[in-house]
């Protein structure tokens, strides 16, 4: 059973992403939305377990001026809201961290 972890707080103001790092299992995915997209700033997002993909919502990144090339980590994959919907369908469950 795979889980999509939904994170809507920035790693600069919340320790949630660190907790997610410990909770995420192989095959899970992390979805950064709202202020969670700030966690993708910089070259390296903190390491996750093998085969844990990290995504960010492009609309929320664009709204915060983070959509230009090179601003967010190359290991974070951008998806639009349709891609977000698909991720919730592909994973058996979605867990929201606040």
């Amino acid at each position, binding site marked *: 059973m795979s889980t999509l972890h939904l994170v809507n707080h920035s790693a600069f103001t919340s320790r949630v992403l660190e907790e997610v790092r410990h909770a995420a299992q192989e095959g899970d995915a992390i979805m950064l939305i*709202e*202020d969670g997209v700030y966690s993708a700033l910089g070259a390296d997002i903190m390491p996750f377990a093998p085969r844990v993909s990290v995504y960010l919502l492009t609309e929320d990144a664009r709204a915060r001026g983070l959509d230009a090339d090179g601003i967010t980590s190359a290991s974070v994959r951008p998806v639009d809201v*349709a891609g*977000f*919907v698909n991720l919730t369908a592909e994973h058996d*469950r*979605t867990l929201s961290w606040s």
Partner: protein
Amino acid sequence: MAAAGLSYALLVQGSPYSRQPAHSALRFAEALPDQGHRLACVFFYHDGVYNAAAMMSPPPDEPHLLMRWRALHDAQQCELLVCVASALRRGLLDDGEAQRHGFEHASLASPFELTGLGQLIEAAQRHDRLITFGP
């Protein structure tokens, strides 16, 4: 490959116009049909119940969240369920509750419905996915 034709329930816990969860939930909900999925219901809990305020009157050049919830209901025939315990505490009463508490007018917008927390448990069991948009 995404599973096709899933039934979704959403849980909205955030207050409108303070943080973003209502916007995130609406945008997600509006995108479901194009991906082949169905929105069955939205459950409003904690400060999320303020989304059902009948007298919500934002400035005309700002998003009108109540109208967007109503449009969503009309477009997808989803239920808009409001936790009764959260709502009464925050002054959101339907006709029956307003009468019972001695108020002249209801403050809960239609088509939102006051329901118990049991409806949330039922939604979680009955539908394929439950997605929480937290504060």
